[in-house]
């Protein structure tokens, strides 16, 4: 990675954020809502990509961290009227702790076992939301009341019923997520993660504690997933069990694959593409998950590098 390519990368990412900022002035309100949703979910996918794309670990259970962030932020707001910024912090904290605990256990396995173990833990979490249905209302979920939908921070009042406020808050969090992942990926840590993906045994034989690094990636992914969940709960004022389902874990995998695993912006692209695709398909059938299934097969069979990954390979080699 030369200094020139670093400069180009930074410029590219800043440009993307700037474009997203500018979009809000040109698109109609309905699209604004969709783009806000895309940005929030993209944080989830970008975090997941650190584990999947860069470290090479396929977790089938990261929905549990999204859900922990969602519920840990949403439930205190619903039941105790907790201050929104505090709830947000609580959501992130909970997901960090949970991902540390689960990571320590799950990372003792690898390959197929790791996929199944993460799937099972997530499924247990999903079932738990039903077991605790008196608090969570299971699938129906809870809507956060309008009275709690504003907060004060650093002297400014943010009114979350306004689409613009939500849009820009989501954009800020997305920008932060991109910054964090950029920093990780370009650091020595990032290089070690890639080395682990390429050849874990050799990496250990070079003196690196691969378990510690994998755990770090797992927690970063879990923390960003939880951040996305907490943001979702607060911005869209809804918590529900469907976000803990296997489907949510698989969708984030799909978004990452489609956009390009192993690229920072790929998951953003993938999320945007799939959300629009599913939205359009839902207009004329309830079986929109068919698209998910077909997309997965097409991607894994013919385009494993995804959109941005293929672009990087063929034309623009310096995209991180």
């Amino acid at each position, binding site marked *: 990675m030369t200094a020139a390519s670093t400069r180009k990368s930074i410029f590219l990412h800043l440009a993307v954020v700037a474009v997203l900022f500018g979009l809000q002035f040109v698109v109609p309100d309905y699209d604004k809502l969709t783009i806000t949703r895309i940005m929030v979910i993209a944080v989830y996918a970008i975090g997941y990509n650190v584990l999947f794309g860069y470290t090479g670990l396929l977790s089938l259970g990261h929905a549990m961290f999204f859900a922990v962030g969602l519920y840990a932020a949403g439930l205190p707001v619903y039941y105790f009227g907790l201050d929104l910024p505090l709830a947000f912090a609580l959501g992130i904290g909970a997901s960090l702790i949970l991902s540390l605990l689960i990571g320590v256990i799950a990372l003792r396995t690898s390959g197929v076992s790791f996929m199944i173990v993460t799937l099972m833990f997530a499924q247990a979490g999903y079932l738990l939301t039903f077991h605790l249905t008196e608090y969570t209302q299971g699938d129906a979920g809870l809507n956060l009341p309008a009275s709690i939908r504003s907060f004060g921070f650093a002297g400014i009042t943010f009114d979350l019923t306004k689409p613009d406020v939500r849009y820009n808050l989501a954009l800020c969090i997305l920008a932060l997520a991109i910054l964090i992942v950029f920093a990780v990926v370009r650091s*020595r840590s990032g*290089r*070690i993660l890639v*080395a682990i993906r*390429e*050849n874990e*045994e*050799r*990496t*250990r*034989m*070079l*003196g*690196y*504690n*691969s378990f510690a690094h994998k755990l770090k990636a797992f927690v970063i992914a879990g923390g960003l997933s939880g951040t996305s969940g907490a943001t979702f709960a607060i911005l869209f004022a809804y918590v529900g069990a469907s976000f803990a389902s296997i489907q949510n874990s698989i969708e984030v995998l799909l978004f990452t694959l489609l956009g390009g695993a192993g690229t920072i912006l790929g998951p953003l692209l993938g999320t945007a593409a799939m959300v629009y695709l599913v939205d359009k398909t839902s207009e004329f059938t309830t079986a929109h998950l068919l698209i998910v299934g077909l997309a997965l097969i097409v991607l894994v069979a013919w385009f494993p590098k995804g959109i941005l990954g293929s672009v990087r390979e063929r034309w623009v080699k310096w995209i991180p």
Partner: protein
Amino acid sequence: MDPVALLSPADFAFSDAPPPGREASSGVAAAGESAGVPLLGTENLTCRFGGLTAVDNVSFALREGEVRAVIGPNGAGKTTFVSLLCGRIAPTSGTVHFRGKDVTKLPAHRKVQAGIAYTSQITNVFGNLSVRNNVMLAAESRLRNAQGRRLTSAELAAKADRALEAVGLSSRMDEKACELAYGHQRLLEVAMGLALEPALLILDEPTQGLSDPEIADFCTLVRAIAASKTILLIEHNMPVVMQIADRITVLNRGQILAEGTPAEIRGNHDVQVAYLGT
């Protein structure tokens, strides 16, 4: 070719003992001169896989600065033995001591940090990365120098470049590792081992698959490295062994059959029987 300076990892301290009494200077062959505690020792080291005893009660000592060759017929347990030393496999019983401390239970990556580097029999590099990035990964593994100061990225890069130069791969540093010829991949492995700046470098069949001129170059390289490092190598190529080894250990069926100088081993009847059958 420049011999690579010895890194004395006094800071990776489970060792309160002072650094071993050897100066890092070029061209000094110190085989057999440092008496006292061996650099590496094993006591009754055993490794069993189910019913098969691959390494059977091996007690072994390696002096600092030696070039020791481990030879033996196929299936003698040579690779298993060195895998026990570097931590790739855990022993069934017995102990391994390095620089006076018990390292038997240390995981592989801690052994590397302690100063033991291993290059494997099967070429095991990062195929999709460039040659230089392969070596940089090795160089970045140990971030502190002998005095415990953290090295700058420039110094780490210099470490990598020195290692590449020592093996003669500098001109290929931007090529993808999987696209190298086999012989060059073996050299890349050695470069990665060097960039780790170990006290003990273990080479497992390094000349396998190399052509004769490449083997000759390799012997020169080993001699240069041996000036500042201890080397343990597994080899089948007898001329190479006779040429570069200070001492030879012969393994057969997991046990030490004989140990001695090349001349002694050449004349040893039991060794001849083990290799040729009688």
